[in-house]
């Protein structure tokens, strides 16, 4: 498992990346992130929603209420044009950080 402090920094990228595949509501987003990271990144309600609201305020994602086939109302989030533009620079920053850490600590992929 990854320590909470490190996870916090990756949260924006995780959410933006998972929304790249299409709109999702909060619960599904948390589930997908957990699945796709094989459980290394896990978002709880308390960690996910403040982040989603911050991203929404920045204009990177937009939430809208939708009714599912079962009649359940959920707030679905989708990436805005601005959000889509943000992914590439954030990815570059993280890639740069990983390269730097790798050089520094000699940590390498297993």
């Amino acid at each position: 498992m990854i320590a909470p402090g490190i996870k916090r920094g990756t949260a924006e990228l995780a959410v933006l990346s998972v929304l790249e595949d299409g709109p999702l509501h909060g619960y599904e987003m948390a589930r997908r992130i957990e699945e796709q990271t094989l459980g290394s990144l896990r978002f709880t309600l308390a960690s996910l929603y403040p982040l989603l609201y911050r991203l929404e305020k920045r204009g990177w994602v937009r939430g809208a209420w939708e009714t599912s086939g079962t009649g359940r109302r959920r707030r679905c989030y989708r990436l805005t044009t601005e959000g889509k533009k943000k992914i590439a620079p954030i990815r570059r920053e993280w890639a740069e950080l990983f390269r730097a850490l790798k050089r520094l600590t000699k940590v390498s992929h297993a």
Partner: protein
Amino acid sequence: MPDWEALVGEQFAAISLEPEERNEVIAELAGHLEETFEQLCRQGFSEEAAVARALSEVKSWRSLRGQIQIARKKEDGMTDRVKQVWLPGFLTLFLSMMLLMVIQFFGPKPVIVSTSGWRMTAPVAVIYVPWLLSLLLIGAMGAYLAGRAGASPRAALLSTVFPVLPYSVFFVIWIPVSLILDDHISHNTMPSALLMGLVAWVVLPGVALLAGGLPVQIVRSRHAASA
């Protein structure tokens, strides 16, 4: 199954949001807890254990309430684009217009340049030298404000030259129109007058703005690279 909305509503009664927004947040969080609970029940947890586990997603309701309140506050509803382009852009445009007005009223006489040299025959370009000099500072300010808001080099460049954009739009529209109308209404004076205007109101101010803004951008990018 517990009434999730009531449960979350109780915790969020004191949140400082508009009632409609508060209800939205409560409904959304309650929906999340309900889905978590249902999933846990499907996995074989007893109802009691599933409720406890779903509620363990929130360690401190007070802290969550505070975080959501800050995140949803409306006072800073500006997007990055507003902070990085529109705000510095309109500020520099406003300042440059005000300065131009002040200089036209109280400043020294403008330099008047004619296409026919120093003989003052139309068309002429009216150049306010103090205004052009002030644009160095305004361009620097636009680049600084955009950079401080985290603008990309392109967005910072746009903020830098923003004060000349209205003039540019005017000339971009009017030059082709004048070329069409020229044959019918005058003796080939319009294109040359527009060209003079383009130099006086777009090219020279644009150069001045860039001369002020580019060094700021260069310094900022070097600073960022060394940080």
